[in-house]
């Protein structure tokens, strides 16, 4: 690896996974468990990476584990305002950055409270619903309430809540689920945990 030069006054690039093969595999398995059992907080073993702020280590680990040259990504305004973030992702994954959220396969969102409406992202097509985007969203914490969610992967119902997401999350999830099989899938990244909210997960009336 060539030594990154601090050209243009930018700081040196932050390192990626210390062990690219096994760190990426561990991170993927955490994401897979989170998607298979939606709304459950899955611990992510210490990613051991120090990405440039405001990109958190869990979010960065998920991005390094899933992005490559085939996956255009979109950054929300706080992430896009820090050039080191796009440099970090481009260098370690080779993925192209796009300005149009509708053209991205992955969207990284550091400010979950300002989460754009989900239909601005790619929804897939009836013949190819897998083309719906994946949103990697930072949250401050994951809780077991106040929402009650149901869907494949959840035995019965499961309580869920996340600090740092819009207050109308339930409406957004309901609309996203109503379009099934089209829609987007969310990977929520807490300080040391992940939770998946695939398009099949829908809020249900409590009690």
């Amino acid at each position, binding site marked *: 690896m060539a030594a990154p030069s601090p050209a243009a006054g930018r700081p040196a690039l932050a390192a990626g996974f210390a062990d690219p093969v096994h760190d990426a595999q561990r991170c993927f398995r955490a*994401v897979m*468990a989170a998607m*298979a059992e939606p709304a459950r907080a899955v611990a992510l073993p210490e990613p051991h990476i120090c990405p440039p702020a405001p990109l958190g280590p869990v979010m960065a680990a998920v991005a390094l584990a899933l992005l490559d040259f085939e996956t255009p990504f979109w950054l929300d305004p706080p992430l896009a305002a820090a050039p080191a973030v796009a440099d970090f992702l481009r260098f370690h994954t080779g993925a192209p950055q796009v300005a149009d959220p509708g053209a991205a396969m992955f969207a990284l969102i550091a400010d979950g409270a300002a989460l754009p409406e989900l239909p601005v992202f790619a929804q897939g097509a009836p013949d190819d619903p897998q083309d719906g985007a994946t949103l990697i969203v930072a949250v401050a914490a994951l809780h077991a309430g106040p929402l009650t969610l149901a869907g494949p*992967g959840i035995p019965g119902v499961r309580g869920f809540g996340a600090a740092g997401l819009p207050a109308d999350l339930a409406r957004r999830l309901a609309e996203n689920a109503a379009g*099934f099989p089209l829609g987007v899938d969310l990977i929520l990244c807490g300080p040391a945990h992940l939770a998946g909210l695939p398009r099949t997960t829908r809020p249900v009336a409590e009690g």
Partner: protein
Amino acid sequence: MSDAPARPRPAGGPAMPAITYNFAYLDEQTKKMIRRAILKAIAIPGHQVPFAGREMPMPYGWGTGGVQVTAAILGADDVLKVIDQGSDDTTNAVAIRSFFAATAGVATTTRTSEASIIQTRHRIPEAPLASGQVIVYQVPIPEPLRFLEPRETETRRMHGLADYGLMHVKLYEDIAHHGHIATTYAYPVRVAGRYLMDPSPIPKFDNPKMDDSPALQLFGAGREKRIYAIPPHTRVVSLDFEDHPFAVQRFAAPCALCAAEGVYLDEVILDDAGSRMFVCSDTDHCATRQADGHTGTMRAPYGSSAPSSPPPPPHAGENETALAETVPTPSGERP
């Protein structure tokens, strides 16, 4: 770095060149591509996600799809079990188990309860699967509508529109011809109330095990390059009619070796005079029961010095360990 696939050294000396592979054979970009397909497959239960299937060091039909899915999810801490028609010790199962023991160095087992990943060809183990386990199915033809509609463009559109009347017509024609639904394997299911799915050629006996399973179920079709999935605790319904409800096969006699009832049995021909026996298709289940003291009509009691039939298959993968050790390790510098 271990993520760069090592090339064999030019054979300059009498010794075989050392060949090393990336962990679990596939390169990292391929794993990422397959992992993304798996995540979308989980998010859209039963939908066939296309993926850029790679050529594997085994022919199509030998489980290249399942092997690629297993390679993409496998970690150093996993314990792998591979079965072929329920058996841990047939060629396909032994070859794939030793493939991953050699290329990934993972622990292998024949015990269903000890495995974290189970790759299977055409059976679901008799022992109930547990939360946290992943079962990977080898799939020859992922499209349940393929023999009814040969055009992929049409079948994708039919899935897009949930237009599954044709499959009900097929099952009805079974009843019209035979008086009952004559499909006994690869029996079509509806996943989470939406997608029609081919459960791979498992006997319909195993279909009820897919419903509300605590384990994650992944399906890989190598030749057709499709991955699909059923998350844990997902409703999986076998298609039927009110007046012809779905029913599984039943066997008249228990396993001849372990006396198990309510399990799927294989017929074994014993001579050319018509003698036969029926034994568990799941060799681990049968061996476990025999070790627990269950004895069928054609087997001597466990521990007897003069068994009337061969001993149960070994549980520890001793043969695979020996195979793995024959793989050369990198000794010199690379070119």
